[in-house]
């Protein structure tokens, strides 16, 4: 992070005696004023609730009973950490992350390279790939729920035509996550595509021309110039994708009717928290699950920070 030079404390030239800039402490006071609105909201709606959640994770708080409830100590944590459904939800979330992050990075990169190369009608590709990204998750989920419907959906009809249907892909524990992952790839690919396209356009052209003169084939140019120079974009895309996938809820909630089924085969961590708190009324236990999940995300973010630090170090060298 760059350090800012302080504007307000520069010595004032003696010639402007009639008007002088306010001294240092006024800059300090003004700064708190500027920070106040954001700071107030930040404390009220982020830090405060987080602290409350931490506290209530040690209590048997109930949604339908007043007060924070009887003390449980570590009981909620023991319950969460020994709950098979919680670990299934962690597993589902991680599987979903892999199923979406890997194809999204690869497809985003490949399509961006292709579009950059074709260079014509870019608006068409942007429209086709990026438009799904602005759809609300609910719209996306309803469309794909319809496509997957056994006996009447388009995809199911195609599967039937291929001789593998009717297949209740959303009703089969083996296919439900891949099916929802596929719909998510369709939905968010445009975002990665755009990031990669922006990254591609920053690569100096003479690099390719020089390589071409040296006799490098198209494939070699991609392999030794494009991909390495896009490493920073790839890190960014990957981390954003992982963090988003860890927070998956909407499309699974809608496409499985809120059940995360069949047999919990698609329940993500956030749905476990949601169900525990708002369906089962068990706020304390949900708080503990939420805290555990928070630590999980914190871990991922920490890995990202280390990675980007290292990358930046390399670039600077």
């Amino acid at each position: 992070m760059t350090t800012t030079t302080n504007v307000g404390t520069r010595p004032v030239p003696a010639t402007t005696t009639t008007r002088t800039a306010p001294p240092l402490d006024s800059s300090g006071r003004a700064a708190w004023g500027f920070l106040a609105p954001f700071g107030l909201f930040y404390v009220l709606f982020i830090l405060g609730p987080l602290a409350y959640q931490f506290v209530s994770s040690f209590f048997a708080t109930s949604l339908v009973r007043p007060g924070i409830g009887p003390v449980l100590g570590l009981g909620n944590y023991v319950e969460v950490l020994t709950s098979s459904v919680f670990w299934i939800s962690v597993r589902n979330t991680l599987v979903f992350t892999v199923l979406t992050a890997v194809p999204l990075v690869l497809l985003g990169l490949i399509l961006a390279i292709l579009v950059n190369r074709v260079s014509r009608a870019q608006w068409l590709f942007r429209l086709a790939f990026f438009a799904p990204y602005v759809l609300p998750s609910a719209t996306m989920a309803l469309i794909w729920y319809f496509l997957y419907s056994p006996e009447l959906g388009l995809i199911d009809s195609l599967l039937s035509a291929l001789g593998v249907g009717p297949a209740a892909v959303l009703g089969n524990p083996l296919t439900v996550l891949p099916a929802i992952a596929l719909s998510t790839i369709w939905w968010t690919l445009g975002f990665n595509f755009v990031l990669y396209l922006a990254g591609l356009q920053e690569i100096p052209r003479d690099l390719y021309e020089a390589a071409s003169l040296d006799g490098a084939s198209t494939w070699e140019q991609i392999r030794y110039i494009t991909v390495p120079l896009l490493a920073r974009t790839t890190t960014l895309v990957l981390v954003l994708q992982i963090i988003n996938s860890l927070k998956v809820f909407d499309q699974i909630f809608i496409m499985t009717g809120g059940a995360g089924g069949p047999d919990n085969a698609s329940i993500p961590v956030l749905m476990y928290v949601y169900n525990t708190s708002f369906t089962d009324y068990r706020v304390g236990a949900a708080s503990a699950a939420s805290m555990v999940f928070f630590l999980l995300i914190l871990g991922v973010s920490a890995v990202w920070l280390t990675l980007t630090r290292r990358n930046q170090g390399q670039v600077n060298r």
Partner: protein
Amino acid sequence: MAVRPGTMSRRRLLELGGAALGVGAVGLTAGCGSSVAAGVVGAPPSPGTTTFWNLWGGSDGRRAESMYDAYRAANGGPASLEAITFAWGNPYYTKLSLATIGGRPPDIAVAHASRLPTLVRAGILEEITPADLAAANLTQDSFSPTAWKAVTVDDTVRAFPFDVGPLVLYYNTDICGKAGLLGPDGKLAPIQGVEAFEKAMAAGKQAGAKYGAVWPVGGDPASNWRWFQTLHAQKNSAPFLSDNGHSVTLDDDEVAKTLELMSKWTGPQGYAPGSVDYAGSLSVFGSGDAAFLVVGVWEITTMQEVGVPFGMTTFPQLFDKPGVWADSHVLALPAQPGRSAESRARTLGFARFMLDEGLTWAGGGSLPALRSVQESEGFRNLKPQADYAPSGDIAVYDPTAWFAGAGSNFQIAVGSQIALVQQGLATPRDAVASMRSQLTRYAETPDPL
């Protein structure tokens, strides 16, 4: 909920907020009034409107729509009733709970009898007092004993029984006719015992249907549970849960045997498809591709609209005793602090109106809970309703527990396993083991109520 502050401070706070801001809202608020106002200051809905929440989708929803229209016509126009349909199952009950805890419940809401004990213990529902019953001109004798029992929790009445919805057997009259399964009266000849049922399905298939029978398998644990429970309740075996859900008492061997049988039908014997979901099963039967359909009574309208020739009958007794899965819709009053006497009277009037419309509702398949409707000439002449009306007497309701009831964790945990077995993805033994461990976990979890 930690604090429920008085309305005064809340209103003040809201007004302050409303005055201070409205940045993006200004332009829009000018044009559109009430709903934005409700969003900004949490204003109550217009007085004189009864808000009614339900989970009636599909053809149930359309039938209910005609009843609302009748109510509106009789009670002062379109604004007299606001009826809202939510997604079925846990999401509906979550919504109802959150709305009640959040201080903005509807005036009256539909619930399943199987969910009633949990909702009552969570403080979500008001009591129906003797005065309320009197105001609606109802007594205990107005209802069938089963229905009355279903709405009585801890000796207090908590809702108006509305209907009884059992699982039944739909049959395609053309296919069954060709297969020689119909009696001289054109109705399905009685079937008794597993073997007879299998023979009937086989005969249907031989008569040219793609499948002998169809029932929902994928994507809908509740349907799986209903089907399983219908078969299982006919056996003399232990209940799944006892002691209000604090102990798990299912008979592993018997459950496994029932599952084994079901998986045989969707698997090796191929009587029924093992990969259809709810809508898919209706579509298969509706397009004449199956001789039998096993779902609840409420799909009668769907089949009538599709135009498939069909009849309905009480699900046959295949085991030791008669029995079918059933649940009831009830009309309940969510806890609403400061409900005015006028609003209460209007709400009770709506409940009474809906009960009196029982014959219209019965057209959608369910059996009316009100005796006067049950015994009416109109209902007795309703076909094929009269053919399965005896189902009501052998109805078996879901076990009682904080995690049980329609669309609950119990149905999801057990129903998912039933689906897996039918899809050939789990063995009956593994499924029973998984049911037991999941249910044990819930049974041992501290009761949040």
